[in-house]
Structures are given as C-alpha cells and as structure tokens.
C-alpha cells in the first residue's frame, strides 16, 4: 500500500510535467490547426538551453526562464518560416504532419553533434524531504507541482478573461469568421506560438528535472505521452489536456508500481488505444479526432 501512495506522489509530479506540455501542444492544435510533431524536440532544445545556463552556475529555477525563451523563440521561428508558408500554400493536414515530423527529425539531428549522445542532468537543490501520510516528496518536486498549477491557472485566466484569450478562442472556433470580425488572426496565431512555445520550454525543463537524466533521444518519448494526454482529453481542448495529463500521469506511475517502470509508455499507449476505440473525440471535444462529416 505504501508503494502505491508513494507512486501517487510521483504520479502527481508526472501529471504536472505532462499538463504543462500537453496544454501547449493542444493549444497549437486547437488554435492553429497544426499537429506539431516537433514539439518533443523543441522541449529538448529548451531543456538543453536551460542545462547550459544551469551549468554556468545559475540556479535551475532561473535557468528555466532561458528554457522558456528558447522554446518560445524556436516555436515562433518554426511557425513563421516553415508551417505558415506551407499552410498558405494550401498544403493539406497530412502534408503538414509529414512536414512537422521532418522538422522534428532535423532539430534532433542538428542538436546531436552539438550536445552529444550522452545523458545530462541538472544541478538541483532537491531541498528537504517532506512526508505526509506515506507521500514522500522533496521541496523541488512540490515546487514543480506549484509551477504547473500556476501555469494552468494562468492559461485559464488568459483564455477566459483577456481580450487576447477571447481572440484565440474565436480563431480556434472559426478563423474566417474571426478575421471578418476584425481579429488579426495571423498575429493571434503568432502570439499563440510564442506562448505555447514558452509552455513547451518550461515543460522541457521540468521534464528534465523530474527524470534523473535526459538526452536528445528523450524527445520522442515525451511526445508520445503528450499526444496520449492531449487525445485523451480531446485534442484542441486545453482543459481536456489538463484532465488527460492528470489521468495519464497517475495511471502510468501507478502501473509502474504495479507492473514495471519500463512499461509506462506502453500503458499510456494502451489508454490511447482505448480512447481511440471507445471515444475517439476524447473526453471533452464534440468532434475532435472524428472525420469531418459531410
């Protein structure tokens, strides 16, 4: 029983990491209609940006800002110079997926000669070990959960209460109509890429903090978990992604305690398959993954 309570704690941390990443991923999809398969690699670039700042002696929590900036800049560039030109050219959804996968491959392999194949890890002050009814967490781990909670609230506040958030929701619902109402959709989309890129960057850093070490190859694994959480919640739905992340995080960590840690991703995948068979539109979306009718 003790083992499962401890696993619950790890599950909460995993869920926090996944939630930050999955909300960014799902917003890119929902608002800009782009399944960005390079997301995992952008996370790695941000993770390494923070790593080098951290190596230079800066506290990891400050270095996280460097990660966020790197993620925002790279996502903006990807959209501005790769995705938008192809979308304007009229490339279909499938073409865009192939392009983003090609971009992911290129980013990973441009990074490899620079950072190498070895695994890296941050210098973190884990802080005091806190125990509460069998839950064992360090101060740093609790801080990750707090960061995730703050970011989720910030995303919620932005989408719900700001003009920008309203413009984003309008663009997501119907870009043509939004443009006709005077919303500068291209600018909104650029801002979306900056914000989601920053989320992606923070996610890359906290993912590196959560795991003992990371390497360029970790990107693909992150992507799989993020896709699972986003699809489970209903792609394009930020709140769905939060719920999806919570479920995936808890279930994978509990299964790691019950079965074996190697099969974490397989469990995430099993959830994904179940969702696709039983409710392909996800928990929240009305249509989502389903083929457009008529």
């Amino acid at each position, binding site marked *: 029983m003790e083992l499962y309570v401890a696993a619950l704690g790890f599950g909460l941390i995993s869920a926090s990491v996944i939630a930050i990443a999955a909300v960014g991923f799902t917003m890119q999809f929902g608002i800009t209609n782009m*399944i960005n398969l390079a997301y995992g690699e952008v996370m790695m670039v941000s993770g390494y940006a923070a790593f080098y700042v951290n190596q230079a002696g800066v506290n990891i929590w400050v270095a996280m800002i460097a990660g966020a900036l790197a993620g925002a800049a790279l996502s903006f560039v990807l959209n501005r110079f790769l995705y938008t030109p192809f979308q304007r050219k009229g490339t279909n959804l499938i*073409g865009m997926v*192939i392009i983003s996968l090609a971009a992911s491959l*290129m980013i990973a392999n441009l990074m*490899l000669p620079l950072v190498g194949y070895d695994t890296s890890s941050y210098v973190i002050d884990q802080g005091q070990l806190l125990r509460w009814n069998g839950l064992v967490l360090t101060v740093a781990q609790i801080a990750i959960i707090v960061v995730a909670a703050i970011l989720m609230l910030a995303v919620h506040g932005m989408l719900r209460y700001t003009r920008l958030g309203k413009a984003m929701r309008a663009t997501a619902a119907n870009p043509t109509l939004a443009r006709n109402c005077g919303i500068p959709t291209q600018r909104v989309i650029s801002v979306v890429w900056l914000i989601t890129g920053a989320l992606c960057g923070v996610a890359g850093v906290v993912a590196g903090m959560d795991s003992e070490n990371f390497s360029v190859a970790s990107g693909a694994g992150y992507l*799989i978990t993020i896709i699972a959480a986003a699809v489970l919640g209903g792609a394009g739905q930020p709140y769905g992604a939060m719920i999806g992340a919570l479920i995936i995080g808890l279930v994978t960590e509990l299964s790691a305690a019950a079965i074996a840690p190697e099969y974490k991703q*397989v469990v995430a995948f099993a959830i994904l398959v179940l969702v696709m068979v039983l409710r392909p539109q996800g928990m929240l979306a009305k249509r989502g993954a389903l083929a457009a009718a008529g």
Partner: protein
Amino acid sequence: MNSYYAATLAVYAGVDIIACIALNLQFGVSGIVNFSFIVFQAAGAYTAAVLSMPPDSAYGGYQTYIGGLQLPFPIPWIGGAIVGGLLAIPVGLVVLRKLRPDYQAISLLVLSVIANSLITNARTFLNGAAGIAQVPGPFSNQVDPLAQSYQLLYVGLTLPCVLLVWAVASRIVNSPFGRSLRAMREHEVAATAIGKNPVQLKMTVFIVGGVIAGLSGAILVGYIAVWAPSVWLYPETIILFAAVIVGGRGNNVGAILGALLVPVGFEEATRMIPPTIGGWVPPPNLIPAMQWVAIGLLIIGFLWFRPEGVRPEPRRVFEGAPVREDSERVLKS
C-alpha cells in the same frame, strides 16, 4: 567494385523497392499516412527469423526468442508476409475506421514508437534490445553463405519477389479497385457518395501493404542475418516517405525511382565522403546526423518546390470522356 558489394547493393535496392511500392500503395495511391510502416517490415523480419532459426537453446542461451522452427526456404518468407498482413488487421481496425487523416498519422507514429519500446523491454519474446543474431538465410545449409555464388543466389531470390510485387502493385493501381482508391484519396466524401466504402478500401490496401512490407523484412533479415529494435526505429519510415515523395507519389515507377534515389543512392553518396576534409576530421557522429538532416530537408524541399516528385503521377483520362465543346453543346440545347 567487387561482386560482393554489387550483390549487397542489389539486395538492399530490391528490399527498398519492395518497401517503397508498398508504402506508395498506402500513401501515394490511397492517402493513408502509415507512419508505422517499418513495424510491418519488422514483423515480417522477426517472423522469418524465428521460422528459419533453430530453437534458442541451440545458441547456448545467449539469445532467447519464441519459435525456432527451422523451416525450409520459402516458408519463412511467406510466413513473414502473412504476419505483416495479419498485424495490419487489428491496427487498421483501430486506426482507419473513424479517425481523421492527421489523427491516423499520429496514432500510427505513436504505435511505431511504442511497438519498438515494447519489443526492447520484453526480453524473452524476441531477445529485447540486443536483437536476434545468426539468422540462417535461405539454403544456407546447402550453399556456403560466405561464398560468392551465395550472393548471386540471394540476388536471384530477391529479383523475382521485386517483379512479383511490382506486377501485383501495377495490377492494383490500374484496376477499377485502384481507381476507387484514387477517388477516395482525392475526395473521400464524393467517393462514399457514389457507393465506395472507404473503410473497406483502406483496410484492403492496408493489409496488402502489410503483406508486402512483411515480405521485404523477411528478405532483408535473411541477408543481413541480424534483426534488432535499433534497425526499425520510427525515423526509418521517414526515409521511405522521403523516397516516395521524391520519386513521385501515386505511381509505382516513381516509387521505384525514389527507392533508388533516396535509401540506396543517398547511402552510397555519403559513403563517398572522405574521412578527412582538408585535414579536418569530422566527429564520428556528425555524418549520420547530417544524413538525417538532409532527409528532412529533402522532404521539405520537395513538398515546397515539387510536391509531385521527380516522376509525377500520370493524369488518367478516359477515352469516352466527353470533350468540353460537347458538354457545352449539350448544356445549350
């Protein structure tokens, strides 16, 4: 160039051509973005391996795997093809029925990554990350596999398979069934409206592609004698996509051309890079990494500048199709 090198090149070209024709049937002709294509090739390879190998106890326990039936030649290849097709059934049923095309693509990508990690971690099933080694090739108990005659024999076994696959694929592309596939690719709703069942069409072509992919894996594993998770990581599928996009989507000649240009030609071209460039020795991992970058650039470049590929799909016109003036006259009268 010695004959050993030539034979290796010929076998690899044959395997890549077969794989590209299969991917072209799925992606080029029918519009199914099968990002887990390499999984079907791997399924064929593993099947052929365990069907042709002796039980794992014969190797003194350094590798463990299921099967080990030691069956004679055509059976492992046929078995590989069958398993490739069988695997396509559950995958297709989950992925191809309801999902949007871009969702199908990411689901298949996820499947590819997960299948690889599953096989890597389940050590007793197919020997995990280390993979299976010392796979006996066809007739290797009768002809010495290291002899030159064996190389020729292997090319001789590969070539008929290439021709057979090409014949089958051409037949499919040019048949009424192929027309239905293209109609579905171009406009799924319209194809449904004239009575085509897109799920049935996609499932059929997915299974046919799986069979061909399985065969390509079986041929490859018999030749290289090893098969491990590291040779079927998901980027391998992207190379084949690059080949089909470069060659020309939707026509088999384009697929063959792509197979010769990208997986074969590309590998050979980078072999020509000298170990030192003007006294500068590139780090050992730089060139493979740059190869992948180049594959990405190739895909993006072709999709931007020439999405139809080197050899575009021929426009198909019907003999009896009404000419413009005719239809206008009909409308006026």
